[in-house]
């Protein structure tokens, strides 16, 4: 049983890594239809595997699907952190805090919506938009007024965003109340509670959660990013602790009784339920199409979007400037790079991904506990990023999958077979494995290696392409 399980999990992990490799390879093809075909094929493969039953047993059990899901949310958080730490060189522990912010923000929106209250969506959506407008407005104002010290600028931004928030709440609440008659209420659910609308609201909630986390990171990062890297790290630790404390006190010092503080938020609509693995009793191979849910469509969509966006970000002039800032801030300044702006931009982009990841996570769990967003847990994405290779997007992805499957899948279950105390050994074996790996590969699993789509185009390849183009003409 144990050996079979071990082989099974390793095989699944290998298959998933191969799947990622295939996806990245396909996306690196030249033509648009090839890319589109890759995306469709990659989705079809993963969806088919999930729906497949052999002798009535799912290839990917609900537990495995959960692991895969966790791996993908971890990928998003880790990619964001790698952007900040690996590509920009800013050691940050705040990523997990933004993950928590995103999770609670998205959860609150859909929770209220499913209870016949559109105010979460309207206020948060309005707030995020007004907040962005306020930040851009103040930014433009400060740009004209030269030489404003960072802390003064921070005060301006803070005041602007607080005003935006108050205005959003004041306008949003009556607006949401007036929409109530159109959408129905909890007692008589109208369009509000229909499954299709729910999916749209879910998508909006996740995007808003990302934007909310991004704006929070802007306000936090603006004064703090001017600190040197180590001091910045300590400040981000402080931020993670603040977030945890606020989440514990959501019902006391924050006005969100539905989040229930330290007891944990329950009743979040589970919008990403997985295909039920138990149905289908037929022997032999079978694809249980009846068990299909939109869960993997969403997860896959967000996964691919995250990949594409982060790659486009890194492989651009802004991304190169970010790398230059990591290598040498002073030289980057002397090369005409606005270092402060670049660091802030990268920090905001990374936090956006964390917020989106959190939003997705909340709708799979259906339950949020502040304990999950403790800063100790915040070391997990850091481990994944270092483990995969600082400055390697592929490394972060592969390490997320490997880490989740190794820690949760393999060790927990394998040791669980041995007795009730054995799962504790997992946190002994896992650090040992970590130490060994760092000794063997000090630059992480993949160093700075990238696969297919994520690869940087070197000069030789650019020349080859240009030559091919000339021949084609």
């Amino acid at each position, binding site marked *: 049983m144990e050996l079979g399980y071990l082989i099974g999990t390793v095989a699944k992990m290998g298959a998933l890594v191969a799947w990622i490799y295939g996806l990245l390879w396909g996306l690196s093809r030249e033509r648009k239809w090839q890319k589109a075909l890759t995306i469709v094929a990659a989705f079809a493969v993963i969806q088919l595997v999930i729906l497949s039953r052999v002798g009535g047993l799912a290839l990917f059990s609900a537990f495995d699907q959960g692991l895969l899901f966790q791996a993908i949310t971890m990928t998003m958080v880790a990619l964001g952190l790698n952007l900040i730490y690996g590509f920009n060189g800013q050691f940050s522990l705040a990523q997990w805090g933004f993950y928590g912010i995103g999770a609670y923000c998205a959860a609150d929106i859909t929770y209220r919506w499913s209870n016949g209250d559109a105010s979460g969506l309207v206020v948060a959506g309005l707030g995020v938009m007004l907040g962005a407008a306020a930040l851009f407005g103040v930014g433009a104002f400060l740009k004209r007024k030269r030489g404003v010290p960072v802390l003064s600028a921070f005060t301006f931004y803070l005041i602007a965003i607080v005003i935006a928030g108050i205005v959003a709440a004041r306008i949003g609440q009556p607006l949401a109340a007036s929409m109530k008659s159109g959408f129905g209420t909890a007692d008589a659910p109208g369009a509000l509670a229909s499954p299709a609308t729910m999916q749209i609201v879910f998508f909006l909630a996740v995007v808003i959660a990302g934007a909310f986390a991004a704006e929070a990171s802007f306000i936090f990062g603006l004064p703090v990013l001017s600190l040197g890297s180590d001091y910045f790290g300590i400040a981000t630790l402080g931020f993670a602790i603040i977030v945890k404390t606020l989440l514990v006190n959501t019902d006391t010092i924050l006005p969100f009784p539905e989040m229930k503080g330290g007891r944990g938020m329950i009743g979040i609509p589970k919008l990403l339920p997985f295909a039920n693995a138990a149905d289908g009793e037929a022997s032999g191979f079978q694809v249980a199409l009846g068990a299909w849910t939109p869960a993997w469509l969403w997860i896959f969509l967000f996964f691919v979007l995250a990949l594409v*966006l982060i790659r486009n970000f890194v492989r651009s*002039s802004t991304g190169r400037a970010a790398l230059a800032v990591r290598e040498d801030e002073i030289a980057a300044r*002397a090369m005409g790079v606005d270092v402060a702006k670049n660091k802030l931009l990268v920090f905001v982009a990374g936090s956006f991904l964390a917020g989106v990841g959190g939003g997705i996570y909340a709708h799979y769990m259906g339950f949020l506990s502040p304990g999950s967003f403790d800063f100790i847990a915040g070391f997990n994405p850091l481990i994944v990023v270092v483990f995969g290779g600082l400055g390697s997007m592929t490394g972060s992805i592969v390490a997320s999958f490997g880490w989740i499957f190794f820690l949760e899948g393999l060790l927990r279950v394998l040791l669980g077979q041995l007795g009730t105390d054995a799962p504790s050994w997992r946190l002994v074996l896992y650090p040992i494995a970590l130490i060994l790996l760092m000794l063997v590969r000090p630059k992480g699993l993949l160093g700075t290696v990238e696969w297919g789509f994520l690869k940087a185009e070197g000069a030789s390849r650019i020349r080859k392409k240009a030559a091919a183009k000339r021949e084609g003409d």
Partner: protein
Amino acid sequence: MADDTILKLHKATKAFGGLLAVKDFDLELPRGSLQGLIGPNGAGKTTAFNLITGLIPTTSGSIEFEGERIDGLESFEITRLGVARTFQNIRIFANLSVLDNVRVAYHAHAGYGLADSLARSRRFEKKEAELTEKALDFLSIFKLADIADEEARNLPYGQQRRVEIARALACDPRLLLLDEPAAGMNPREILELMDYIHFIKDRFSLTILLIEHQMRVVMGICEYLTVMDFGEAIARGTPKEIQSNEVVIEAYLGKGAGKSAAS
């Protein structure tokens, strides 16, 4: 341009606490000149460079570039105006390829925004291709095109210097500041470097100000020298004049040395 002074420092002063690293320092660079800034260690030469490029703010005094005040500007803004520099201890982007080292310098003039790059718009594709082609052409001028994909840290020292200078030139400057370009070079490399400086000066019609300890370089290529000691300019003149200037010899070798050196 009527006024042919490209850079003008007037009573530029930098105090670190009670220490005056640069004190009432005046400097005028005519357009197209190649001047040297020399002096004993700790004389404030690099600090003067840092003031010009805005890496540290001036305490008092003014700095004008092409007739406009640049003191108080951020260093990236000064670079974008047309002042580029290299560093005493090479500050190359070690883990980036040679090509990317140069492409970073184009960041300010990339011609596309963040939205373009995220969406990979047509504009991005076009501008990025142009930019890369420009960078590759640029590298071939310096005979670095063959190693464009090499990570900068793997290059030998002399080549790293050349990459650093190429990178500074990619900023499209009119004034180039070289901080000890010949440091750590052997005599043959120094000769190459001197040719190289002449070459880039003509090719990019630059004004160059350089700090150097290697007298062979200073006396060989500089048209005019300013000597600093304890943050102040103690002598100015052509290399010939400076060589026999007693104040300078005193600053370098100590009091009383002047007579024996002159004799």
